[in-house]
């Protein structure tokens, strides 16, 4: 790459300013504020803050409610990420078989990607509506009386299914383009070398998809932990009491509904650390990742 030459040494910084400003205002400042207030006990009515050291962290980490939420978040994240990755891959593999070389279909499927996530989210929530949701009726057929918003695990199941459902098209499209970027001659060579299609998948296709899969895994973990807020909110809106929520939702609930700004800040700092860890893992592995060509 060419290095640009600037007449003034300040020019590059000036050009970076707007971006830096945005990061500072919308990220650095709130983050600093969160870290600061996580060490205080704030009085929500009179604005007085008392320094309490790491009490907020201790309270958060030892609180049984927090631990329960943390466990649910872990379970939720693992299930949503793995199931949506698995199904996305499965659909992509079957689509790839039909699609080889037929770009018309491919374009059509791209449309699914463009439309699906928001709409699918809403439809998903509707499917589990306590009164009109067909999936609730469907569960009833098997004698499962789903009580969304009342029964902890019924609500949790609905959340996992809707969040997964919403993420599948995304994974699908990435896996599909990963699959399509495997040269057909490599697949053909494999079909001469190996009779079993199943074995071919695990020895050739899947390893070649590994970079895509890994990238998606991180993306899905981030999605499940942080971006499912809206979905969860739609499902638990009326009865937040006994419903399972994720850590991010709990930050919001404790902070804005419970008015515990200090505790909520401490929790969000913990989440920031998790994001940091995920990011480090991602960069480490991407660096080490083998580049195929």
């Amino acid at each position, binding site marked *: 790459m060419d290095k640009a030459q600037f007449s003034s040494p300040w020019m590059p910084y000036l050009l970076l300013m707007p971006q830096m400003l945005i990061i500072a205002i919308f990220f650095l400042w709130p983050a600093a504020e969160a870290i600061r207030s996580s060490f205080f006990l704030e009085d929500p009515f009179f604005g007085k803050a008392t320094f309490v050291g790491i009490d907020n962290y201790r309270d958060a980490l030892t609180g049984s409610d927090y631990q329960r939420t943390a466990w649910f978040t872990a379970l939720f994240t693992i299930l949503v990420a793995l199931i949506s990755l698995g199904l996305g891959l499965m659909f992509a593999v079957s689509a790839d078989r039909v699609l080889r070389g037929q770009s018309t279909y491919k374009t059509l499927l791209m449309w699914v990607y463009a439309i699906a996530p928001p709409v699918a989210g809403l439809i998903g929530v509707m499917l589990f509506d306590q009164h009109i949701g067909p999936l609730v009726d469907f569960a009833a057929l098997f004698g499962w009386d789903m009580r969304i918003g009342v029964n902890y695990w019924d609500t949790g199941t609905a959340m996992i299914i809707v969040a997964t459902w919403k993420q599948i098209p995304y994974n699908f499209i990435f896996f599909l383009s990963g699959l399509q970027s495997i*040269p057909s*001659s*490599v697949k*053909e*060579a*494999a*079909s*001469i*070398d*190996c*009779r*079993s299609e199943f*074995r071919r998948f695990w*020895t*050739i296709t899947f*390893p*070649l998809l*590994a970079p895509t899969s890994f990238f998606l895994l991180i993306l899905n973990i981030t999605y499940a932990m942080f971006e499912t807020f809206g979905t969860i909110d739609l499902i638990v809106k009326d009865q937040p009491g006994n419903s399972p929520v994720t850590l991010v939702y709990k930050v919001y609930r404790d902070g804005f509904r419970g008015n515990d700004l200090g505790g909520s800040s401490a929790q969000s700092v913990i989440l920031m650390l998790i994001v940091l860890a995920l990011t480090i893992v991602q960069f480490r592995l991407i660096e080490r990742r*083998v*580049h*195929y*060509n």
Partner: protein
Amino acid sequence: MTTLRIKNARKVYPNGAEAVKGVSVDVEEGELVVFVGPSGCGKSTLLRMVAGLESVTEGEIELAGRVVNDLEPADRNIAMVFQNYALYPHMSVRKNLAYGLKNRKTPNAEINSRVDDAAKLLQISEFLDRKPSQLSGGQRQRVAMGRAIVRKPAIFLFDEPLSNLDAKLRNQMRLEIKKLQQSLDTAAIYVTHDQVEAMTMADKIVVLNDGQVEQIGTPAEVYGSPATTFVASFIGAPPMNLIPGDLSENGLNIGGTVLDHTADHRGPVTFGLRPERARLTSDANGIAVDIGVVEELGAIRLVHCQLGDHELTVTQDSEEPLPSGRMGLEYAERDAMLFDRDTGHRL
């Protein structure tokens, strides 16, 4: 015994394109058969039908006496070398070679010895632990060959395996492949659109055009007595001169010039003469030509000349004096070929 028999094979692609229109070819034991023809003539399609990568619309593919139309590629006892090598990018060279054997439950000791033998033969032993991305084009080519060799198949299928290499390496590899194929004494089909490659490598050439066989024969046969004007113009460089003419009692009339010709045929014909079988003389009394552009190629030169309205190319030794002006053209009558002007078939 005949290793491979292609009987009346037809291929119609789902989109309706008829790529192969009834082709029959036999490949004998240990024989190297080259499919040659212009781009889009169906060479690859035919090869891929033999490999089992394309279904056969009609006809039969018979390998070692057994019809294999409905067998999976892996069950056909063939090995293929692809144009872009198609190595498994995530496997080391050793694993690339071993993959096909492993899947066939070959004992490990046997796999190792075969891989080592092939690697030695192809001089890639020192690269066995590298990934394909760490190899040069020529080395990848060898690995692709190695992957085919270790399998000890009934027949090798090559689809333009050298077209991604530079000219010098291509000439060298072409010789190596030929030697290798002979020493392994295994039948092979080699697809190329390069007629030089076809001539130098083939035991038998199959000239294809538009999904049909134009001619099957040894390199000497397709060069020496081409069956059609297509073969005549495709095989040999520079290509054969093909000039429209008319045969009558008087002889062969080419654009006003009447040549002596003792043929029984009457009517419109195409007159064919290889550039290297024609001579220019200073005596312009016979057939007179006007010398045009002269291309020096080193040992020989190409002399482009004008015979009436028609272009003609003559090759000449560079030692000879530079031709110019109006000169005479000579050739032996047995070197002149006549083709039916309508069908293009040799008379």
